[in-house]
């Protein structure tokens, strides 16, 4: 099923967008550190906190837009030539189609995150003093930022399924990003229901400590949006 989805996604740029985001993120990390490395390390924070939190903000912005674009593309190809109508009259489970799209994007996003964090690993190994670099902290932070990004992925895929017009999907994504940005520093826990705010959490923290509560909320939201998307995909009527 995933193979079939990959065939359908040929020439759409879905996987390419996420891969390029990984490369761009890594280049940004390397370039930023090469220019501002000394001033960053002069900050009154632990070197690992500086390395991870001070560079994550821009990476996260790249990742948000990559997820918005990738999820938009993955369903716009279904709607642009009404191909989805054909899918609904073929002996295929639309839940499996949705799940395959989800798995492809999540896998490519993981590749992107690994590429970005490989750049951080390289800086940590080569630029930080001996004993300052902690591989476990880097891995934990990578997993943390990956997991907190998943609600946006899951939410945007559901939006892309619901709205046939790609510009509406992009609009929802941009609105989510801007509203998330405006509310990211709020202390109100209830706002974590907003998937973009969950993704912004690691970027607004001053330490690289993993917040378990945020991870739990991220997982609940990811699963909730995924289930909602699966139900909608099964019951959507194409007229």
């Amino acid at each position, binding site marked *: 099923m995933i*193979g*079939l989805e990959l*065939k*359908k996604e*040929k020439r759409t740029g879905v996987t390419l967008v996420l891969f390029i985001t990984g490369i761009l993120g890594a280049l940004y990390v390397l370039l930023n550190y090469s220019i501002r490395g000394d001033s960053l390390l002069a900050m009154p924070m632990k070197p690992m906190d500086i390395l991870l939190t001070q560079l994550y903000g821009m990476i996260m912005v790249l990742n948000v837009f990559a997820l918005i674009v990738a999820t938009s593309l993955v369903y716009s190809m279904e709607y642009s*030539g*009404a191909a989805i*109508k054909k899918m609904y009259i*073929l002996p295929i489970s639309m839940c499996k189609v949705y799940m395959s799209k989800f798995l492809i994007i999540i896998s490519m996003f993981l590749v992107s995150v690994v590429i970005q964090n490989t750049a951080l690993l390289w800086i940590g190994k080569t630029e930080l003093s001996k004993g300052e670099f902690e591989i476990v902290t880097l891995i934990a932070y990578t997993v943390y930022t990956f997991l907190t990004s998943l609600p946006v992925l899951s939410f945007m895929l559901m939006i892309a399924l619901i709205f046939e017009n790609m510009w509406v999907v992009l609009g929802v994504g941009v609105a989510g990003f801007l509203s998330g940005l405006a509310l990211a520093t709020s202390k109100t826990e209830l706002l974590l229901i907003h998937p973009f705010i969950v993704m912004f959490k690691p970027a607004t923290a001053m330490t690289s400590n993993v917040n378990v509560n945020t991870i739990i909320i991220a997982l609940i939201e990811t699963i909730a949006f995924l289930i909602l998307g699966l139900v909608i995909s099964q019951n959507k009527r194409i007229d």
Partner: protein
Amino acid sequence: MESIISTRGLTKKYNSFTSVNKLSINIKRGTIYGFLGPNGAGKSTTMKMLLGLTKPTSGKFRIDGKKMPEDRIEILREIGSFIESPSYYPNLTGRENLDIIRSILGLKKKDVEEVLELVGLSEFGDRLVKKYSLGMKQRLGLAGALIGKPPILILDEPTNGLDPAGIHEIRNLIKRLPKMYDCTIMISSHLLSEIELIADDIGILNHGRLLFEGSMEELKRTAKAQGIKDDNLEEMFLSMVNVDNYERMQRAVL
């Protein structure tokens, strides 16, 4: 003869508008059933209900003894369909589009080439579909329905957008299909002249109601009984529709 598709009181309402009204039709196995009606008569909606694209408001139907939605996958495995306009992935070539359908149906690679040849698209198979003309997209849509030689074909105005030569070619192809593939075809059109050349049985629909169902011979007999020359079936069709429209208006006034 045994019916492969039968509907009983099939109805579809959109708010206060009734698109299909208590429709009961029977399509015999191995025949071509012409589904005729003016634009907006409910032909496409009926076909969409048969394919599970639209949920009926009431009524039921059976396709080869199976029920929707319980047997959706089994039903769709038996049906090749083409509804309204061609559906395709514009980012893929014609051949790649058909290969997607082939993969889903679990068919062999050669089936794609065979069906491309059948609809006359072999030489354009590697062209991106977004660069196809309307007629080529129409042929691709038809190829998507024919691939794998399904036992039932549901074709909604398949000659739309084709030039006269293309219409003639596709019409001849459809006519040959029941013998070639041992299949049953339900084909819709708003032109009786088109349907009378290929169909064994016809159903005439107007404002969602079935006005006539039977063989071409029965239609000719009905026409004769009403004083309409049987070589002018288009007039017969228009007369049936006009009478029904008049009666509807009378009912509305009352």
